[in-house]
Protein backbone atom coordinates (compact mmCIF):
# COMPACT_ATOMS: atom_id res chain seq x y z
CA UNK A 1 0.00 0.00 0.00
CA UNK A 2 2.73 2.47 0.88
CA UNK A 3 4.65 1.64 -2.22
CA UNK A 4 1.59 2.38 -4.29
CA UNK A 5 1.05 5.60 -2.36
CA UNK A 6 4.62 6.66 -3.03
CA UNK A 7 4.18 5.93 -6.72
CA UNK A 8 0.95 7.88 -7.00
CA UNK A 9 2.24 10.81 -4.98
CA UNK A 10 5.31 10.91 -7.15
CA UNK A 11 3.18 10.90 -10.26
CA UNK A 12 0.97 13.71 -8.99
CA UNK A 13 3.89 15.84 -7.93
CA UNK A 14 5.65 15.23 -11.20
CA UNK A 15 2.48 16.31 -12.94
CA UNK A 16 2.49 19.45 -10.88
CA UNK A 17 6.14 20.06 -11.63
CA UNK A 18 5.49 19.82 -15.35
CA UNK A 19 2.28 21.78 -15.48
CA UNK A 20 3.01 24.23 -12.69
CA UNK A 21 -0.63 24.86 -11.97
CA UNK A 22 -0.16 25.33 -8.25
CA UNK A 23 2.71 27.73 -8.56
CA UNK A 24 1.35 29.66 -11.51
CA UNK A 25 -2.30 29.79 -10.69
CA UNK A 26 -3.26 28.72 -7.22
CA UNK A 27 -0.59 30.63 -5.33
CA UNK A 28 -1.40 33.93 -7.03
CA UNK A 29 -5.06 33.20 -6.36
CA UNK A 30 -4.29 32.78 -2.68
CA UNK A 31 -2.48 36.10 -2.54
CA UNK A 32 -5.35 37.72 -4.43
CA UNK A 33 -7.74 36.52 -1.76
CA UNK A 34 -5.62 38.23 0.87
CA UNK A 35 -5.71 41.43 -1.13
CA UNK A 36 -9.47 41.21 -1.55
CA UNK A 37 -9.85 40.90 2.17
CA UNK A 38 -7.90 44.12 2.52
CA UNK A 39 -10.29 45.83 0.15
CA UNK A 40 -13.27 44.49 2.00
CA UNK A 41 -12.07 45.42 5.45
CA UNK A 42 -10.62 48.68 6.57
CA UNK A 43 -6.84 48.57 6.19
CA UNK A 44 -6.32 51.65 8.30
CA UNK A 45 -7.62 50.21 11.49
CA UNK A 46 -5.92 47.17 12.87
CA UNK A 47 -8.78 44.86 11.97
CA UNK A 48 -6.65 43.07 9.40
CA UNK A 49 -3.96 42.32 11.89
CA UNK A 50 -6.42 41.13 14.48
CA UNK A 51 -8.21 38.95 11.98
CA UNK A 52 -5.04 37.58 10.45
CA UNK A 53 -5.50 34.05 11.74
CA UNK A 54 -9.00 33.72 10.37
CA UNK A 55 -8.27 35.35 7.05
CA UNK A 56 -5.24 33.14 6.60
CA UNK A 57 -7.24 29.98 7.04
CA UNK A 58 -10.11 31.12 4.87
CA UNK A 59 -7.59 31.81 2.12
CA UNK A 60 -6.11 28.34 2.65
CA UNK A 61 -9.55 26.78 2.41
CA UNK A 62 -10.40 28.54 -0.83
CA UNK A 63 -7.05 27.67 -2.35
CA UNK A 64 -7.38 24.06 -1.29
CA UNK A 65 -10.54 23.89 -3.30
CA UNK A 66 -8.64 24.82 -6.44
CA UNK A 67 -5.86 22.39 -5.66
CA UNK A 68 -8.34 19.55 -5.15
CA UNK A 69 -10.24 20.37 -8.30
CA UNK A 70 -7.00 20.21 -10.18
CA UNK A 71 -5.98 16.92 -8.58
CA UNK A 72 -9.15 15.29 -9.82
CA UNK A 73 -9.43 16.98 -13.17
CA UNK A 74 -6.33 15.15 -14.28
CA UNK A 75 -7.93 11.87 -13.30
CA UNK A 76 -11.20 12.49 -15.05
CA UNK A 77 -9.86 12.98 -18.53
CA UNK A 78 -9.47 10.13 -20.90
CA UNK A 79 -10.66 7.25 -18.85
CA UNK A 80 -7.99 7.49 -16.19
CA UNK A 81 -10.44 6.33 -13.59
CA UNK A 82 -10.68 3.04 -15.47
CA UNK A 83 -6.96 3.00 -15.88
CA UNK A 84 -6.49 3.31 -12.13
CA UNK A 85 -8.83 0.43 -11.54
CA UNK A 86 -7.00 -1.67 -14.09
CA UNK A 87 -3.59 -0.67 -12.92
CA UNK A 88 -3.24 -3.06 -10.04
CA UNK A 89 -2.66 -0.22 -7.61
CA UNK A 90 -4.23 -0.68 -4.23
CA UNK A 91 -7.02 1.89 -3.79
CA UNK A 92 -5.93 2.73 -0.27
CA UNK A 93 -2.51 3.47 -1.67
CA UNK A 94 -3.99 5.67 -4.37
CA UNK A 95 -5.87 7.60 -1.70
CA UNK A 96 -2.81 8.13 0.46
CA UNK A 97 -0.69 9.09 -2.51
CA UNK A 98 -3.14 11.65 -3.80
CA UNK A 99 -3.78 13.05 -0.34
CA UNK A 100 -0.07 13.41 0.31
CA UNK A 101 0.48 15.17 -2.98
CA UNK A 102 -2.35 17.59 -2.23
CA UNK A 103 -1.00 18.11 1.28
CA UNK A 104 2.43 18.92 -0.08
CA UNK A 105 0.96 21.54 -2.38
CA UNK A 106 -1.09 22.99 0.46
CA UNK A 107 2.00 23.32 2.65
CA UNK A 108 3.66 25.30 -0.09
CA UNK A 109 0.57 27.49 -0.35
CA UNK A 110 0.55 28.03 3.38
CA UNK A 111 4.13 29.19 3.31
CA UNK A 112 3.27 31.64 0.56
CA UNK A 113 0.25 32.85 2.48
CA UNK A 114 2.35 33.17 5.61
CA UNK A 115 4.70 35.48 3.81
CA UNK A 116 1.75 37.32 2.33
CA UNK A 117 0.17 37.83 5.70
CA UNK A 118 3.38 39.17 7.20
CA UNK A 119 3.87 41.56 4.34
CA UNK A 120 0.33 42.68 3.65
CA UNK A 121 -1.26 42.62 7.06
CA UNK A 122 1.76 43.60 9.07
CA UNK A 123 1.37 40.54 11.24
CA UNK A 124 4.18 39.36 13.40
CA UNK A 125 4.59 35.61 13.48
CA UNK A 126 5.21 34.24 16.91
CA UNK A 127 5.14 30.76 18.37
CA UNK A 128 6.60 29.05 15.31
CA UNK A 129 6.34 25.59 16.81
CA UNK A 130 2.63 25.92 17.36
CA UNK A 131 2.14 27.49 13.97
CA UNK A 132 4.01 24.67 12.28
CA UNK A 133 2.17 21.94 14.14
CA UNK A 134 -1.16 23.55 13.37
CA UNK A 135 -0.35 23.80 9.71
CA UNK A 136 0.67 20.17 9.52
CA UNK A 137 -2.35 18.82 11.36
CA UNK A 138 -4.82 21.05 9.58
CA UNK A 139 -3.33 20.33 6.18
CA UNK A 140 -3.46 16.59 6.79
CA UNK A 141 -7.14 16.80 7.67
CA UNK A 142 -7.95 19.08 4.78
CA UNK A 143 -6.12 16.90 2.29
CA UNK A 144 -7.72 13.69 3.55
CA UNK A 145 -11.29 15.00 3.60
CA UNK A 146 -10.74 16.84 0.35
CA UNK A 147 -9.39 13.80 -1.47
CA UNK A 148 -12.29 11.76 -0.22
CA UNK A 149 -14.88 14.24 -1.42
CA UNK A 150 -12.90 14.85 -4.56
CA UNK A 151 -13.24 11.28 -5.69
CA UNK A 152 -16.91 11.31 -4.77
CA UNK A 153 -17.53 14.32 -6.95
CA UNK A 154 -15.14 13.29 -9.71
CA UNK A 155 -16.61 12.38 -13.03
CA UNK A 156 -19.93 14.04 -12.33
CA UNK A 157 -20.70 16.83 -14.70
CA UNK A 158 -21.46 19.25 -11.89
CA UNK A 159 -18.28 18.45 -10.02
CA UNK A 160 -17.02 22.02 -9.80
CA UNK A 161 -20.03 23.35 -7.97
CA UNK A 162 -20.65 20.22 -5.95
CA UNK A 163 -17.25 19.90 -4.33
CA UNK A 164 -17.33 23.15 -2.35
CA UNK A 165 -20.86 22.47 -1.12
CA UNK A 166 -19.78 19.07 0.10
CA UNK A 167 -16.38 19.95 1.45
CA UNK A 168 -16.74 23.22 3.30
CA UNK A 169 -19.32 22.27 5.90
CA UNK A 170 -17.34 19.15 6.69
CA UNK A 171 -14.05 20.97 7.22
CA UNK A 172 -15.55 23.65 9.45
CA UNK A 173 -13.76 22.14 12.47
CA UNK A 174 -10.45 22.62 10.64
CA UNK A 175 -11.21 26.27 10.17
CA UNK A 176 -12.25 26.69 13.78
CA UNK A 177 -9.30 24.75 15.15
CA UNK A 178 -6.72 26.28 12.86
CA UNK A 179 -7.84 29.80 13.57
CA UNK A 180 -7.95 29.36 17.32
CA UNK A 181 -4.54 27.74 17.37
CA UNK A 182 -3.06 30.51 15.25
CA UNK A 183 -4.59 33.15 17.46
CA UNK A 184 -3.06 31.48 20.46
CA UNK A 185 0.31 31.44 18.78
CA UNK A 186 0.17 35.02 17.56
CA UNK A 187 -1.19 36.20 20.87
CA UNK A 188 1.65 34.58 22.73
CA UNK A 189 -0.49 32.16 24.69
CA UNK A 190 0.55 28.89 23.13
CA UNK A 191 -0.89 26.86 25.97
CA UNK A 192 -4.35 27.58 24.70
CA UNK A 193 -3.50 26.55 21.19
CA UNK A 194 -2.22 23.03 21.67
CA UNK A 195 -5.59 21.50 22.56
CA UNK A 196 -6.87 22.77 19.23
CA UNK A 197 -3.99 21.04 17.50
CA UNK A 198 -5.22 17.91 19.23
CA UNK A 199 -8.64 18.40 17.68
CA UNK A 200 -7.07 18.88 14.27
CA UNK A 201 -5.12 15.67 14.69
CA UNK A 202 -8.28 13.79 15.57
CA UNK A 203 -9.98 15.17 12.49
CA UNK A 204 -7.04 14.20 10.30
CA UNK A 205 -6.86 10.71 11.78
CA UNK A 206 -10.58 10.08 11.35
CA UNK A 207 -10.63 11.19 7.75
CA UNK A 208 -7.44 9.45 6.78
CA UNK A 209 -8.82 6.20 8.19
CA UNK A 210 -12.09 6.74 6.41
CA UNK A 211 -10.33 7.44 3.16
CA UNK A 212 -8.16 4.35 3.35
CA UNK A 213 -11.23 2.21 3.93
CA UNK A 214 -13.71 3.84 1.60
CA UNK A 215 -11.61 4.90 -1.39
CA UNK A 216 -11.66 1.43 -2.90
CA UNK A 217 -15.44 0.96 -2.81
CA UNK A 218 -16.02 4.48 -4.09
CA UNK A 219 -13.67 3.95 -7.01
CA UNK A 220 -15.32 0.64 -7.81
CA UNK A 221 -18.70 1.75 -9.00
CA UNK A 222 -18.08 3.01 -12.48
Amino acid sequence: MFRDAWLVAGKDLRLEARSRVTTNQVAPFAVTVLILFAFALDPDSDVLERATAGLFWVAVLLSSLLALQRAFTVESVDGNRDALRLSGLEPAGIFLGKACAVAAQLIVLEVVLGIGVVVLYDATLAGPLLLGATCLAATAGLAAAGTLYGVLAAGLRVRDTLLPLLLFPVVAPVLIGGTRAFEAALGDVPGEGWPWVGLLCVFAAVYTAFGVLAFGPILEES
Partner: protein
Amino acid sequence: MTSPAPSGTEPSGTAAGAGAPAHTGSQGTRVLGSVTAAGLVMLSLFALVFSPAEADQGDAVRLMYIHVPTAVVAFLAFFVTAAGSALWLWKKSRWWDLVAASSAEIGVIFTALTLVTGMVWGRPIWGVYWTWDARLTSTALLLLLFLGYLAIRRVPAEPDVRNRRAAFAGLIAVVDVPIVHYSVNWWNSLHQEPTITRLDPSIDGLMLFTLMLGIVVFLLLYLWLLVHRFRLAWLEEQLASSDLAAALVERRAEADEATISAPPAPSSAAKASGTIAEASR
Protein backbone atom coordinates in the same frame (compact mmCIF):
# COMPACT_ATOMS: atom_id res chain seq x y z
CA MET B 1 -41.25 -8.59 -10.15
CA THR B 2 -37.66 -8.20 -9.16
CA SER B 3 -38.35 -6.45 -5.89
CA PRO B 4 -35.83 -7.09 -3.12
CA ALA B 5 -37.31 -8.15 0.18
CA PRO B 6 -37.16 -5.50 2.87
CA SER B 7 -34.73 -6.52 5.51
CA GLY B 8 -36.64 -4.86 8.31
CA THR B 9 -40.24 -4.34 9.25
CA GLU B 10 -42.11 -1.18 8.51
CA PRO B 11 -43.66 0.46 11.52
CA SER B 12 -47.19 -0.18 10.37
CA GLY B 13 -46.55 -3.77 9.43
CA THR B 14 -48.51 -3.57 6.20
CA ALA B 15 -47.12 -5.30 3.12
CA ALA B 16 -45.89 -2.72 0.68
CA GLY B 17 -44.94 -5.05 -2.11
CA ALA B 18 -48.17 -6.88 -2.75
CA GLY B 19 -49.29 -5.37 -6.03
CA ALA B 20 -49.04 -1.65 -6.66
CA PRO B 21 -51.06 0.32 -4.11
CA ALA B 22 -52.89 3.35 -5.41
CA HIS B 23 -51.84 5.54 -2.53
CA THR B 24 -49.38 5.43 0.29
CA GLY B 25 -51.89 5.29 3.12
CA SER B 26 -52.74 2.13 4.97
CA GLN B 27 -54.39 0.95 8.14
CA GLY B 28 -51.20 1.40 10.10
CA THR B 29 -50.42 4.88 8.91
CA ARG B 30 -53.97 6.01 9.52
CA VAL B 31 -53.66 4.95 13.12
CA LEU B 32 -50.26 6.56 13.41
CA GLY B 33 -51.54 9.71 11.78
CA SER B 34 -54.49 10.03 14.10
CA VAL B 35 -52.34 9.52 17.13
CA THR B 36 -49.93 12.15 15.88
CA ALA B 37 -52.70 14.60 15.16
CA ALA B 38 -54.15 14.07 18.60
CA GLY B 39 -50.73 14.52 20.06
CA LEU B 40 -50.24 17.78 18.23
CA VAL B 41 -53.52 19.08 19.56
CA MET B 42 -52.57 18.08 23.05
CA LEU B 43 -49.17 19.65 22.66
CA SER B 44 -50.65 22.92 21.51
CA LEU B 45 -52.93 23.00 24.50
CA PHE B 46 -50.16 22.31 26.92
CA ALA B 47 -47.68 24.58 25.25
CA LEU B 48 -49.92 27.53 24.75
CA VAL B 49 -52.35 27.30 27.61
CA PHE B 50 -51.44 25.00 30.44
CA SER B 51 -47.74 25.49 30.90
CA PRO B 52 -46.65 28.65 32.56
CA ALA B 53 -44.74 31.48 30.99
CA GLU B 54 -41.21 31.72 32.14
CA ALA B 55 -39.92 34.38 34.46
CA ASP B 56 -37.28 35.98 32.23
CA GLN B 57 -38.51 35.19 28.78
CA GLY B 58 -42.22 35.48 29.11
CA ASP B 59 -44.33 33.81 26.53
CA ALA B 60 -41.46 33.52 24.07
CA VAL B 61 -40.34 30.41 25.91
CA ARG B 62 -43.24 28.54 24.37
CA LEU B 63 -41.24 28.36 21.16
CA MET B 64 -38.96 25.96 22.97
CA TYR B 65 -41.67 23.34 22.72
CA ILE B 66 -41.22 23.33 18.98
CA HIS B 67 -37.59 24.31 18.70
CA VAL B 68 -36.09 21.58 20.85
CA PRO B 69 -38.18 18.71 19.41
CA THR B 70 -37.44 19.73 15.85
CA ALA B 71 -33.76 19.84 16.70
CA VAL B 72 -33.93 16.35 18.16
CA VAL B 73 -35.73 15.06 15.08
CA ALA B 74 -33.31 16.82 12.74
CA PHE B 75 -30.28 15.13 14.23
CA LEU B 76 -32.09 11.82 14.48
CA ALA B 77 -33.05 12.05 10.81
CA PHE B 78 -29.44 12.55 9.88
CA PHE B 79 -28.33 9.52 11.80
CA VAL B 80 -31.11 7.50 10.17
CA THR B 81 -29.85 8.67 6.80
CA ALA B 82 -26.33 7.65 7.69
CA ALA B 83 -27.42 4.29 9.06
CA GLY B 84 -29.56 3.66 5.98
CA SER B 85 -26.63 4.52 3.76
CA ALA B 86 -24.31 2.19 5.61
CA LEU B 87 -26.77 -0.68 5.55
CA TRP B 88 -27.49 -0.16 1.89
CA LEU B 89 -23.83 -0.24 0.98
CA TRP B 90 -23.42 -3.33 3.09
CA LYS B 91 -26.54 -5.34 2.34
CA LYS B 92 -27.35 -3.89 -1.08
CA SER B 93 -31.08 -3.91 -0.54
CA ARG B 94 -32.79 -0.87 -2.11
CA TRP B 95 -35.01 -0.62 0.92
CA TRP B 96 -32.26 0.99 2.99
CA ASP B 97 -31.28 3.49 0.36
CA LEU B 98 -34.88 4.70 0.09
CA VAL B 99 -35.12 5.00 3.85
CA ALA B 100 -31.95 7.08 3.85
CA ALA B 101 -33.20 9.36 1.09
CA SER B 102 -36.64 9.83 2.64
CA SER B 103 -35.15 10.58 6.02
CA ALA B 104 -32.87 13.17 4.45
CA GLU B 105 -35.73 15.02 2.82
CA ILE B 106 -37.73 15.11 6.02
CA GLY B 107 -34.65 15.92 8.03
CA VAL B 108 -33.80 18.96 5.97
CA ILE B 109 -37.26 20.38 6.59
CA PHE B 110 -36.99 19.83 10.32
CA THR B 111 -33.52 21.34 10.35
CA ALA B 112 -34.76 24.45 8.60
CA LEU B 113 -37.65 24.58 11.02
CA THR B 114 -35.24 24.38 13.95
CA LEU B 115 -33.25 27.28 12.62
CA VAL B 116 -36.32 29.38 11.95
CA THR B 117 -37.85 28.76 15.35
CA GLY B 118 -34.49 29.45 16.90
CA MET B 119 -34.32 32.78 15.14
CA VAL B 120 -37.87 33.70 16.01
CA TRP B 121 -37.23 32.75 19.59
CA GLY B 122 -33.99 34.65 19.79
CA ARG B 123 -35.27 37.91 18.38
CA PRO B 124 -37.43 39.04 21.25
CA ILE B 125 -34.94 37.84 23.83
CA TRP B 126 -31.65 39.16 22.53
CA GLY B 127 -32.83 41.55 19.88
CA VAL B 128 -30.91 39.72 17.15
CA TYR B 129 -31.95 36.97 14.78
CA TRP B 130 -28.81 34.97 15.06
CA THR B 131 -26.21 34.39 17.66
CA TRP B 132 -23.38 32.04 17.12
CA ASP B 133 -24.40 29.80 19.93
CA ALA B 134 -23.32 26.22 19.68
CA ARG B 135 -26.62 24.55 18.96
CA LEU B 136 -27.72 26.97 16.26
CA THR B 137 -24.36 26.85 14.55
CA SER B 138 -24.21 23.06 14.62
CA THR B 139 -27.72 22.95 13.24
CA ALA B 140 -26.77 25.32 10.45
CA LEU B 141 -23.90 23.07 9.49
CA LEU B 142 -26.22 20.08 9.69
CA LEU B 143 -28.49 21.79 7.19
CA LEU B 144 -25.57 22.21 4.83
CA LEU B 145 -24.61 18.57 5.21
CA PHE B 146 -28.17 17.55 4.37
CA LEU B 147 -28.22 19.84 1.36
CA GLY B 148 -24.97 18.33 0.15
CA TYR B 149 -26.38 14.82 0.42
CA LEU B 150 -29.55 15.76 -1.43
CA ALA B 151 -27.55 17.65 -4.06
CA ILE B 152 -25.64 14.51 -4.95
CA ARG B 153 -28.85 12.57 -5.28
CA ARG B 154 -30.07 15.05 -7.87
CA VAL B 155 -26.96 15.21 -9.96
CA PRO B 156 -27.47 14.38 -13.66
CA ALA B 157 -25.94 10.92 -13.75
CA GLU B 158 -26.95 7.28 -13.62
CA PRO B 159 -29.24 6.78 -10.62
CA ASP B 160 -27.20 3.90 -9.28
CA VAL B 161 -23.98 5.87 -9.49
CA ARG B 162 -25.29 8.94 -7.75
CA ASN B 163 -27.18 7.04 -5.08
CA ARG B 164 -24.08 5.14 -4.14
CA ARG B 165 -22.00 8.27 -3.99
CA ALA B 166 -24.63 10.04 -1.95
CA ALA B 167 -24.57 7.13 0.48
CA PHE B 168 -20.83 7.50 0.89
CA ALA B 169 -21.18 11.23 1.34
CA GLY B 170 -23.76 10.64 4.04
CA LEU B 171 -21.41 8.36 5.89
CA ILE B 172 -18.48 10.72 5.61
CA ALA B 173 -20.60 13.56 6.88
CA VAL B 174 -22.05 11.70 9.85
CA VAL B 175 -18.56 11.00 11.08
CA ASP B 176 -18.11 14.74 11.10
CA VAL B 177 -21.22 15.63 13.08
CA PRO B 178 -19.79 14.87 16.53
CA ILE B 179 -16.52 16.60 15.65
CA VAL B 180 -18.36 19.67 14.44
CA HIS B 181 -20.56 19.71 17.49
CA TYR B 182 -17.65 19.41 19.83
CA SER B 183 -15.53 22.02 18.16
CA VAL B 184 -18.38 24.51 17.85
CA ASN B 185 -19.24 24.04 21.50
CA TRP B 186 -15.71 24.61 22.52
CA TRP B 187 -15.36 27.60 20.25
CA ASN B 188 -18.50 29.02 21.63
CA SER B 189 -17.39 28.69 25.20
CA LEU B 190 -14.45 30.92 24.45
CA HIS B 191 -16.33 33.99 23.44
CA GLN B 192 -19.45 33.67 25.50
CA GLU B 193 -20.21 37.18 26.58
CA PRO B 194 -21.88 37.48 29.95
CA THR B 195 -24.78 39.49 28.61
CA ILE B 196 -25.94 36.66 26.36
CA THR B 197 -27.14 33.87 28.54
CA ARG B 198 -27.95 30.42 27.32
CA LEU B 199 -31.15 30.10 25.43
CA ASP B 200 -32.61 27.35 27.56
CA PRO B 201 -34.45 28.60 30.59
CA SER B 202 -34.66 26.57 33.73
CA ILE B 203 -37.50 24.16 33.31
CA ASP B 204 -39.32 21.88 35.68
CA GLY B 205 -42.63 20.26 36.39
CA LEU B 206 -45.25 21.09 33.82
CA MET B 207 -42.78 22.71 31.45
CA LEU B 208 -40.61 19.61 31.49
CA PHE B 209 -43.61 17.43 30.81
CA THR B 210 -44.66 19.61 27.92
CA LEU B 211 -41.19 19.48 26.50
CA MET B 212 -41.09 15.71 26.69
CA LEU B 213 -44.53 15.54 25.16
CA GLY B 214 -43.31 17.76 22.37
CA ILE B 215 -40.38 15.50 21.66
CA VAL B 216 -42.58 12.41 21.55
CA VAL B 217 -45.18 14.03 19.32
CA PHE B 218 -42.59 15.27 16.87
CA LEU B 219 -40.96 11.87 16.76
CA LEU B 220 -44.31 10.39 15.82
CA LEU B 221 -44.74 13.07 13.18
CA TYR B 222 -41.33 12.22 11.77
CA LEU B 223 -42.19 8.54 11.64
CA TRP B 224 -45.48 9.18 9.91
CA LEU B 225 -43.86 11.42 7.32
CA LEU B 226 -41.05 8.92 6.86
CA VAL B 227 -43.40 6.04 6.15
CA HIS B 228 -45.34 8.02 3.58
CA ARG B 229 -42.27 9.44 1.91
CA PHE B 230 -40.63 6.04 1.84
CA ARG B 231 -43.65 4.44 0.25
CA LEU B 232 -43.78 7.16 -2.34
CA ALA B 233 -40.16 6.59 -3.17
CA TRP B 234 -40.74 2.85 -3.29
CA LEU B 235 -43.56 3.24 -5.78
CA GLU B 236 -41.47 5.57 -7.91
CA GLU B 237 -38.71 3.04 -7.89
CA GLN B 238 -40.99 0.23 -9.02
CA LEU B 239 -42.26 2.42 -11.80
CA ALA B 240 -38.77 3.24 -13.01
CA SER B 241 -37.13 -0.14 -12.78
CA SER B 242 -37.57 -2.21 -15.88
CA ASP B 243 -38.17 -5.89 -15.85
CA LEU B 244 -34.79 -7.41 -16.63
CA ALA B 245 -36.19 -10.32 -18.59
CA ALA B 246 -38.19 -8.00 -20.85
CA ALA B 247 -35.16 -5.81 -21.40
CA LEU B 248 -33.12 -8.84 -22.35
CA VAL B 249 -35.66 -9.92 -24.93
CA GLU B 250 -35.71 -6.44 -26.39
CA ARG B 251 -31.95 -6.32 -26.55
CA ARG B 252 -31.70 -9.67 -28.25
CA ALA B 253 -34.27 -8.59 -30.80
CA GLU B 254 -31.64 -6.19 -32.09
CA ALA B 255 -29.66 -9.24 -33.11
CA ASP B 256 -32.51 -10.53 -35.22
CA GLU B 257 -32.86 -7.16 -36.89
CA ALA B 258 -29.18 -7.10 -37.67
CA THR B 259 -29.27 -10.55 -39.20
CA ILE B 260 -29.66 -10.42 -42.96
CA SER B 261 -29.40 -14.01 -44.09
CA ALA B 262 -32.31 -16.37 -43.36
CA PRO B 263 -30.74 -19.58 -42.01
CA PRO B 264 -29.33 -18.19 -38.76
CA ALA B 265 -32.69 -16.55 -37.96
CA PRO B 266 -34.63 -19.58 -36.72
CA SER B 267 -31.67 -20.88 -34.77
CA SER B 268 -31.06 -17.52 -33.16
CA ALA B 269 -34.74 -17.19 -32.28
CA ALA B 270 -34.61 -20.63 -30.75
CA LYS B 271 -31.41 -19.72 -28.98
CA ALA B 272 -32.97 -16.48 -27.77
CA SER B 273 -35.97 -18.21 -26.29
CA GLY B 274 -33.70 -20.87 -24.86
CA THR B 275 -31.46 -18.39 -23.16
CA ILE B 276 -34.40 -16.35 -21.93
CA ALA B 277 -35.63 -19.39 -20.10
CA GLU B 278 -32.16 -19.70 -18.63
CA ALA B 279 -31.92 -16.04 -17.74
CA SER B 280 -35.22 -15.79 -15.93
CA ARG B 281 -34.27 -18.68 -13.68
